[in-house]
Each structure stands twice: as structure tokens, then as C-alpha cells.
């Protein structure tokens, strides 16, 4: 039977698989993309001029950790979904909790602010460009992530693509946070998350075409 010969051929050339191969593949693509994004930010816009003083404010770290947590959870979910039959439930729960926590914080900030200050708090001064810059900075990370994913085996393709896109967006947002000087939780919640969501949507849209194996 012909299948026997195929089996013979495949086992004859078998090589051991390195440990943590999936994670390494992902890190390669994501890392390369993040490096490019970081350089782009540095060269084109630079960091925020007041970075040295900003790192003593809680607003800075809120942005830093919100985006970083979503990126890590998102790539964790991506690592799971890049494997046939693996589930990413805990990572999704984590993502929901992080967003929920910032929602609560935003509500509290808005409640304690005078009514007239609320709209400016939400809109900041950069709401028009913020999501676009996040999307732009995510492009190299997105490309790197999907380059890695192509070598893996996602079976729920659209879900995997959406999550991979969202994670790329979150990492792009983390890099943009070195530039962004907005300080309120509602701004972060709305415009940063919007940028990430758009990148996630793009991931879901290209997944079926790009992630076939």
C-alpha cells in the first residue's frame, strides 16, 4: 500500500523537535516586528519629551501596564490557538478582566470629575490620531506575528487571526505609550482599545487567506 511508503519516508528523515518550538517561532516574528515598530517610533516621532518626569506618575504606568498586560495575554492566547485543539479560555478571561478593571477605573475618574471636565477627559487632545498611530505602529508586529503563525497550525483560523491581530495591536499600543502623553483612564480605555480592536479585526479578515496550511 502506498501510504506505507509515505510513512517510511517520513520516519526515515525524522528529526527531533527543539523544546518550546512554538513559543520560539512566535517570539522570532513578534520580536522582530516589535523592534521595527520601536525604531519607527523613535526615528519618526521620538518619545514624549517629558518621559523622565512622566515615569513618576501613575497615569504613565497605567498605560504601560494596560497595554503590556493585553499584549502578553493576547500572545499567550495566540500561542494556544496556534495549536490544533488547544483552548485559550484563561487568556480570554484575563483580557476581559484587564479591560473591566480599566472600565471601573475610568468610571471612577469620570464620577469624581466636574461635569464640564468629563468630555475633555474622554477626548484628550490626541483622540483623532491616537488609534491611527497605534494601528500604524502595529503593522510590523502584525506582519511578524502572521509570518510566525504560518509555520504553526491554527485550526480555528479566524479566531486565531483575530487574537493574533489584537495582541499585535496591544504591543503596538505599548510602544506608542512611550510617545503618548494623555493621562486619563477613559482616554486610554476608549482610544487605545479601539486601535487594538481594529488591528484584531484586520487579523480576523486576513486569517482565512493567510493562515491556511
Amino acid at each position, binding site marked *: 500500500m502506498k501510504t506505507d*511508503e*509515505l510513512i*517510511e519516508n517520513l520516519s526515515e528523515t525524522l528529526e527531533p523537535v527543539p523544546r518550546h518550538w512554538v513559543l520560539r517561532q512566535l517570539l522570532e516574528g513578534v520580536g522582530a516586528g516589535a523592534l521595527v515598530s520601536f525604531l519607527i517610533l523613535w526615528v519618526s516621532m521620538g518619545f514624549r519629551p517629558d518621559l523622565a518626569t512622566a515615569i513618576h506618575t501613575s497615569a504613565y504606568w497605567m498605560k504601560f501596564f494596560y497595554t503590556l498586560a493585553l499584549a502578553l495575554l493576547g500572545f499567550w492566547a495566540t500561542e494556544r490557538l496556534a495549536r*490544533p485543539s488547544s483552548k485559550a479560555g484563561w487568556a480570554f478571561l484575563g483580557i476581559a478582566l484587564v479591560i473591566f478593571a480599566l472600565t471601573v477605573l475610568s468610571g471612577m475618574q469620570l464620577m469624581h470629575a466636574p461635569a464640564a471636565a468629563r468630555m475633555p477627559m474622554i477626548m484628550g487632545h490626541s483622540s483623532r490620531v491616537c488609534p491611527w498611530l497605534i494601528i500604524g505602529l502595529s503593522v510590523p508586529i502584525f506582519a511578524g506575528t502572521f509570518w510566525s503563525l504560518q*509555520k504553526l*497550525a491554527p485550526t480555528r483560523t479566524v479566531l486565531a487571526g483575530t487574537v493574533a491581530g489584537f495582541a499585535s495591536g496591544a504591543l503596538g499600543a505599548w510602544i506608542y505609550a512611550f510617545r503618548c502623553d494623555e493621562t486619563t483612564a477613559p482616554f486610554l480605555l476608549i482610544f487605545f482599545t479601539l486601535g487594538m480592536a481594529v488591528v484584531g479585526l484586520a487579523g480576523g479578515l486576513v486569517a482565512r487567506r493567510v493562515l491556511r*496550511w
Partner: protein
Amino acid sequence: MLAAEAELKSLMVAGLAGEKAAYRVLLTALGDVLRRYYSRRVGRDDAEDLVQDALIAIHTRRATYDQGQPFTPWLFAIARYKLLDFLRRKRVRVTVALDEADEIFAEDDSEAAMARRDLETLLSTLPEPTQALIRQVKIEGHSMQEAADKAGRSEVAVRVGIHRGLKTLSDRLRGKELP
């Protein structure tokens, strides 16, 4: 079924460590499992093609098996993925034949000629016998069996040769991946 899970899993773990003998036993067992799975769902000839497709997928994506997880769900997720892919391809083929025929015939072929030149350049980087196989089967549309007869090799050797050749090409196009 539980005994099978334990046994298949230990074979898979050994295979991932590079043990050829265990891996051969595993693939043989998986061949039977897959044959049962596919023959209940598609025709006989398609079933055997799918078994081979799935075995190749299992082999090339074996690193995505997480040893902390049960093995059979991983196996059947791949089997199912290949089945759905097969059904979709089949549907696409029919759709093209009926709905898009005019569009295809009306198409300008200069782009195709350019793509063909690129393809030739890329193909020429492969060893001569592999080139010939890919040309016959993938470009000229001969069957695996015909190419095998012509080359004096078995059909499976041809299938594997083509698979390896295409994989080398795609590696070359997008950087190195696992052998």
C-alpha cells in the same frame, strides 16, 4: 480508546524526541485511525488521499503538539481541519467551473506569463529530478502515477519528492522553518 490515547501519546512523545522506530509505529497506527475516520466521510479514493495529506500535516506540524495535553484531540483537530479544507476545495472547484468560467477565459495572460517566468527561476534552484516532478504534476497536470512511471519511481516517492520540493520552495520564499 483510553488505552489507545496513552499508547499513541507515548509514541508521539518518542517521535518528537527523534526516535524513528517509535515514530514509524505511530504513523502506521495513525494511518489506520485516519482511514477509518475519512472513509466514513468521503469516497474511498479521496479517503486515502486525505489520509496521506493528514499524515504529512501531522509530520510537518508535529511541533505544535503540546506534550502536556492529550494527544487524540490534537490528532482529530488536524484530521477535521484537513477534511474541511478538502470539502472547501472541492466546492471551490465546482464553483469555478460553473460561475466564473467567462471571467477566467477573458483574463489577460501577461501576468500569468510573468508569474511563470518567476516560477521557472525559483524551480531551477531545486535538484533536477524534483524540478521535473513538480513540472509534470503541478504545472502540466499529469497524475502522480504518470510521473512515477516516467521517473521509474514509486508513486509515494513522487508524492514525497514533490511535497519536499514545494516545501523547500516555500521555505526559500519566506525563510527557514522546521525540517
